């Protein structure tokens, strides 16, 4: 215990200048972790801490200068641009939003309007879209999530509302876990979170792959942004430059996201 007291007292009172705090979207978070690890491997003096919170946290934190870098997984709204005029936006990657189901469902293709009707609650049984006669369990993100905002804008056309009966989970990871373990469930997730525990559904016959998305065929794609309170300086600028470099963008595409360079 005494040791711990000593250690705590030794903690510097403020962040070192070579520490970069990154906050925001849980979609960008795992990518940012990897980009941070890769950067620190060659620049051991720099420490980058990445934490979640959600896209809106990313925007407000960066806008208010609470962090060095904010993360957002959607377009920055006009209102937010006006609220934080000096905030700089760096699109580091693009990301598709995949529609996934529990592997037991067996439905492999849905039209965009079917997806919309499922999420509004107008379609409630898988048999209505060619699946088994089972009730659909809709899983969604909570309000404020960038993935949800992007999904609402692109699939729900900004007007249709996601059913209140949806299971809400506070992160992409939690959504994947829930869909994987809940029979007859459906959800939307970032491409970067797709794995074998859930089944991807083609939308309008187009499979959710990076190739289809970068070719412009897959219909649900949104930007992933890094936000800085002002023009980036020093270590922050160096890290952002690394992200946009070929090495950084290679990590982006390795993780299933779409590079922007």
């Amino acid at each position, binding site marked *: 215990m005494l040791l*711990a*007291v000593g*250690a*705590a007292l030794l*903690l*510097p*009172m*403020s*962040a*070192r200048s070579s*520490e970069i*705090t990154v*906050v925001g979207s*849980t979609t960008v*978070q*795992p990518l940012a*972790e*990897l980009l941070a690890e890769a950067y620190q491997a060659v620049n051991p003096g720099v*420490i*980058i*801490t*990445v*934490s*979640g*919170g959600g896209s809106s946290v990313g925007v407000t*934190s960066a806008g*208010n*200068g*609470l*962090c060095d870098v904010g993360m957002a997984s959607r377009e920055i709204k006009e209102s937010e641009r006006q609220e934080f005029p000096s905030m700089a936006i760096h699109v580091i990657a693009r990301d598709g939003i995949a529609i996934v189901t529990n592997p037991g469902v067996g439905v492999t293709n849905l039209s965009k309007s079917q997806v919309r009707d499922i999420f509004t609650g107008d379609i409630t049984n898988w048999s209505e879209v060619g699946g088994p006669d089972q009730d659909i369990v809709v899983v969604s993100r909570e309000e404020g999530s960038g993935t949800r905002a992007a999904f609402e804008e692109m699939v729900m056309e900004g007007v249709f509302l996601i059913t209140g009966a949806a299971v809400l*989970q*506070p*992160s*992409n*990871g*939690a959504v*994947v*876990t829930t869909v*994987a373990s809940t029979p007859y469930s459906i959800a939307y997730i970032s491409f970067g*979170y797709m*794995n074998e*525990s859930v089944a991807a559904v083609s939308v309008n016959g187009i499979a959710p792959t990076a190739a289809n998305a970068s070719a412009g065929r897959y219909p649900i794609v949104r930007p992933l942004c890094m936000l800085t309170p002002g023009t980036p300086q020093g270590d922050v600028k160096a890290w952002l430059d690394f992200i946009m470099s070929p090495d950084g963008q290679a990590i982006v595409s390795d993780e299933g996201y779409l590079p922007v360079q």
Partner: protein
Amino acid sequence: MSSRSPAGRKLVQAGAFSLLWVSALLSVLVLASVVGYVMIKGIPELNLSFFTTPPRGGLSGEGGISSTIVATLYLVVMTLLVAAPLGIGAGVFLVEYAESMQNRLMKPLIRIARFGVETLAGVPSIIFGLFGYALFVTLMHFGFSLLSASLAGACLILPVVIRTTEEALKAVPQSYREGSLSLGATRWETIRRVVLPSAVPGITTGMILGVGRIISETAVFYVTLGGSYRTPTSILSSGRTMALHVFYLAMETRAFEKAMATGAVLIACIIAVNLAINAVSRRLTAGGGRW
């Protein structure tokens, strides 16, 4: 007088007592199965490297828990550094000074203090999280950090510390104080040399209770600590406590066995906290005067 047969009444008693036996057995069974399940699933995952390596791999939930142990320790220490002096000071004041202050300014103040401490003890922890997030994270610009989280945590355990300090002091016999004062000691000397030493075990118990509270609290730190699994490097670093790690592992990854293992470590910590409290209170009953 019409009479119920003693045999019938004995039968009723036997029935009632067997129901009580069953409910107690069932309670123990339910609780044991929860703890047992987590322990049995978790303990096989434990090895030295689990304790010495940090988590990695984001969603796959690989790695150990070293950085979460460090973050938990930092948080416990920082919380106590804030809450202990304030809480003990306030407790000493309320018991040793407030009683004798009967002027118009102090009396309502002391009533408010008592009421506030009582009320706060029943407030759900998420309200401390809400408060901590709004005040420390955003308004004071501390961000998601150990600093914000420990200040919120200090608010959470402050009522516990104040109340246990008060109780410990009230348990010190009045004759000790009278004895010391009659020898010409000042009030502070009496407190420092006579009252506080006898109250140390009780106050320590309060501190340990606070430690247990911080180790097991999740909601407050979910909204103030940020959740980064990097080892914290400054008081403004984000971090992830063990309890928070269990939450993230369970919610975000499918690494349930790692979550169980971390849960098992948490349970072990709580057992250690309980043993510590028992040890302290045994000293309290065995030889309270020797402190």
